[in-house]
């Protein structure tokens, strides 16, 4: 298989406008005869569903939560980037593009990233028009701040709840379309498989989570906006329900899965406290604007943080990266924290933690200024950790946060299955090997508001036979889905699904987390196979499949994580270099920085499912860097 990203010709800054000028349109009167399914109601899904419905298509929107307002985009805190240069610093589309490519350690596709940077400006305008209350300066103009990995202030924010406000904006736009009769929201529904007719995506099979009924939904195009898979690590910053099922099922039906080993471990999270803990809470990266990261220089330090004098503190980011200091990108900050903890300098009961200290910022700028910026984050920290961060430094440690990998898509955000699109975190496209702060929301909303409505339209102009829910392809997929549910219910062991999930998470964090080795990954693959065997012999699901059954939902998701984990390790094994988040210990510079191998791995690896129990096939898409020179990242 040759992967064709179908990037339009022409100079990079004209590609998207050329594509828009050339794509085909569906007339307004014909649009209601086309149905588009959108799976997921986060920033990408809700914005896509609202935009497609507003264009006049019939939209069916699906989410497993009880309402479309809950998807985990809501937890994004810090902000959204836009290259508007309101701060008059010389920012531009090109600078945002270069920062994103460089931040991703040259493993993202140039044309997509340029388009993202271009569209960033429209997103903030769209959100403001919806009534999203962004923070304002005294004159009433939009306020901005800086974020990790960049030297300009291009991040727009609503206190520390930007994701919530942007999602509620997209959700309200979707509810507006529901009121107009153009969109229908199917909440408490979970996609369990994709239906293909003549190789094209023509619908889905979803389970009504309340009644347990398997429903068939036919469509002319299917958009997956089902988010990322960091819950494969069990302990992550993701929501309880975040899962890989939608994209994994699509993968097994033929969609290629790209760069699965690229998972971001976020540096500023509250450290773990107990074994049964199910969640690591993220503290916005924006805290690194004013907080200083340090550990005691003495591994046997016993004094409380505030009693440790200045000269006995190791400000390891500032020392090691003087140009960016505490604002280095996430992968660099996380790895540095891991390194000092490995050296025994960590703090807190588990010694897996570093201080994030606001003492100096409060002294210099006053408590009120800090409270204005981070008040809700400080409150959240105090609630969870039971310590007052205005008085003692926060303790933080890296946690799995975001999946850069996902379904492979071309320039039109279409997967290798025609008619099946993937947007937001569900695709692999824009962040390369590391995502910069405040760019997830930007990508989700660029995909949902401004890209996929047009590329789906273009797809819909092609003639195709009418397919409805009575088509035999649906019978076949419903049979497969039912068999899978029966198989899960019938294992009849003694162990709850979360036990297997926890075991899997331990293996993945340890072997396929912030640092990876060939030997470790090979061991991990064997350990994952053991857990998978145990899962399929000792699982117990209580209750029946014909009512709300959260154990059954959970078990299905864990089963898919167990398969994905394998692919992540294979991918990490094959990528014999270090790039961004993917740090193979065998490939590092003398001073411990990531060592890329551009000759062999300036590529996207897209994996093809080759059948159960068969080793998947890797396909490479070569990445070309014409608009920005391949260079070693340096934040020193």
């Amino acid at each position: 298989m040759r992967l064709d990203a179908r990037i339009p010709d022409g100079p990079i800054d004209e590609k998207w406008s050329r594509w828009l000028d050339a794509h085909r349109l569906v007339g307004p009167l014909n649009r209601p005869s086309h149905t588009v399914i959108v799976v997921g109601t986060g920033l990408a899904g809700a914005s896509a569903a609202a935009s497609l419905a507003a264009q006049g298509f019939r939209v069916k929107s699906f989410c497993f939560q009880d309402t479309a307002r809950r998807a985990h985009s809501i937890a994004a805190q810090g902000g959204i980037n836009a290259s508007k240069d309101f701060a008059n610093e010389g920012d531009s589309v090109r600078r945002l593009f270069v920062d994103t490519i460089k931040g991703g350690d040259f493993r993202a596709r140039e044309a997509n990233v340029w388009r993202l940077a271009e569209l960033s400006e429209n997103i903030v305008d769209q959100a403001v028009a919806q009534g999203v209350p962004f923070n304002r300066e005294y004159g009433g103009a939009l306020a901005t701040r800086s974020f990790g990995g960049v030297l300009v202030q291009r991040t727009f924010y609503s206190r520390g709840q930007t994701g919530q406000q942007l999602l509620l904006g997209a959700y309200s736009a979707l509810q507006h379309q529901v009121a107009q009769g153009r969109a229908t929201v199917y909440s408490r529904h979970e996609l369990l498989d994709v239906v293909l007719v003549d190789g094209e995506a023509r619908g889905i099979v979803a389970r009504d989570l309340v009644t347990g009924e398997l429903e068939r939904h036919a469509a002319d195009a299917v958009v997956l906006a089902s988010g990322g898979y960091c819950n494969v690590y069990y302990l992550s910053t993701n929501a309880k329900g975040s899962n890989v099922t939608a994209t994994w099922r699509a993968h097994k039906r033929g969609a290629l899965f790209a760069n699965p080993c690229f998972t971001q471990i976020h540096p500023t999270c509250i450290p773990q406290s107990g074994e049964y803990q199910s969640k690591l809470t993220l503290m916005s990266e924006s805290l690194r604007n004013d907080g200083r990261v340090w550990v005691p220089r003495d591994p046997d330090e016993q004094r409380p943080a505030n009693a440790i004098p200045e000269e006995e503190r190791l400000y390891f980011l500032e020392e090691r990266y003087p140009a960016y200091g505490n604002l280095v990108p996430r992968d660099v900050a996380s790895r540095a924290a891991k390194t000092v903890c490995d050296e025994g300098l960590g703090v807190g009961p588990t010694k897996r933690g570093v201080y994030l200290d606001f003492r100096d910022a409060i002294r210099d700028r006053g408590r009120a200024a800090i409270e204005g910026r981070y008040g809700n984050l400080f409150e959240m920290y105090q609630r969870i950790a039971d310590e007052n961060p205005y008085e003692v430094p926060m303790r933080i440690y890296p946690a799995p946060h975001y999946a850069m990998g996902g379904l492979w898509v071309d320039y039109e955000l279409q997967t290798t299955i025609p008619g099946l699109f993937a947007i937001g975190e569900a695709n692999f496209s824009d962040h390369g090997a590391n995502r910069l702060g405040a760019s997830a929301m930007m990508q989700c909303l660029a995909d949902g508001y401004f890209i996929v409505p047009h590329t789906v339209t273009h797809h819909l102009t092609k003639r195709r036979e009418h397919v409805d829910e009575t088509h035999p392809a649906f019978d076949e997929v419903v049979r497969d889905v039912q068999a899978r549910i029966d198989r899960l219910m019938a294992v009849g062991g003694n162990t709850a699904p979360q036990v297997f999930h926890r075991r899997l998470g331990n293996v993945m964090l340890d072997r396929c987390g912030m640092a990876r080795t060939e030997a470790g990954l090979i061991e991990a693959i064997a350990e994952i196979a053991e857990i998978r065997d145990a899962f399929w012999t000792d699982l117990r699901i209580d209750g029946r499949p014909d009512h709300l059954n959260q154990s059954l939902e959970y078990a299905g998701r864990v089963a898919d994580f167990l398969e994905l984990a394998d692919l992540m390790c294979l991918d990490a094994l094959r990528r014999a270099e270090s790039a961004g988040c993917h740090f193979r210990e065998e490939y590092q510079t003398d001073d411990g920085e990531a060592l890329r191998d551009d000759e062999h791995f300036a590529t996207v690896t897209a994996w093809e499912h080759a059948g159960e129990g068969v080793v998947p096939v890797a396909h490479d898409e070569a990445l070309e860097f014409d608009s920005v020179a391949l260079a070693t990242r340096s934040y020193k």
Partner: protein
Amino acid sequence: MRFRLELWRQTGPDDPGRYEVVEADGIDPEASFLELLYQVNEGRIASGLDAVAFDSDCREGICGSCSLVIDGMPHGPRQVTSCQTFMRDFEDGQTIRVEPWRSNAFPVIRDLVTDRSAFDRIIEAGGYVSVTTGPQPNPNSMPIAPATQEAAMDAAICIGCGACVAACPNSAAMLFTGAKVTHLNLLPQGQPERRQRTLAMVEQMDEEGFGGCTNHGECSLACPQGISLDVIGMLNREYRAALRGKPVAGTSGMTAQ
């Protein structure tokens, strides 16, 4: 820590339901209330019993999924979401009663899970600015004073969990509806639809079977976001003005022919 839990069990909207007593032992004081229930369920599944159903998702207090009445208080004793309520806030050996949101407008689906889609229908009635995707004006062409933005934001932070309804003796949704009306009606973007929005949302709220506000103030005390009763005052003022057809700031009062 050890707890004696009285958990509400109900197989569906037609089942009268009952309490089931469950002993929970070996609980970490740093565990959240949800983690307590995950652990209880893990043990129940292993010993052949059925798990207790409850909603949860983000587990950081922002998604609004979790919805437990803990010892008579929506979300528990600390005015934070259930997921941010920690076992260290309880006494070792304590008996804790756990119930779903109680409101006719939120029917029980199973055990502690309720159907809160009534909130979606209130938003659908008018909780938006009717713009669709496309080119928009430069956002700085319409300056918003930080004080206005702050006031709008104080209302916009509602997470839609429904604790306000569960806390209210009348099962009123005035805090929820008032928060959305306040958020949009304060901002310049919300002005053209101000009157229509207020009327439609209040009408939908009544249609869903939520009660009226009689100023108990329980809603605001239970709200994990601490949304002020001021939004109910604002909702009442907006509703009166809308009913009277009084022109509101930002509308011309003229109708296109």
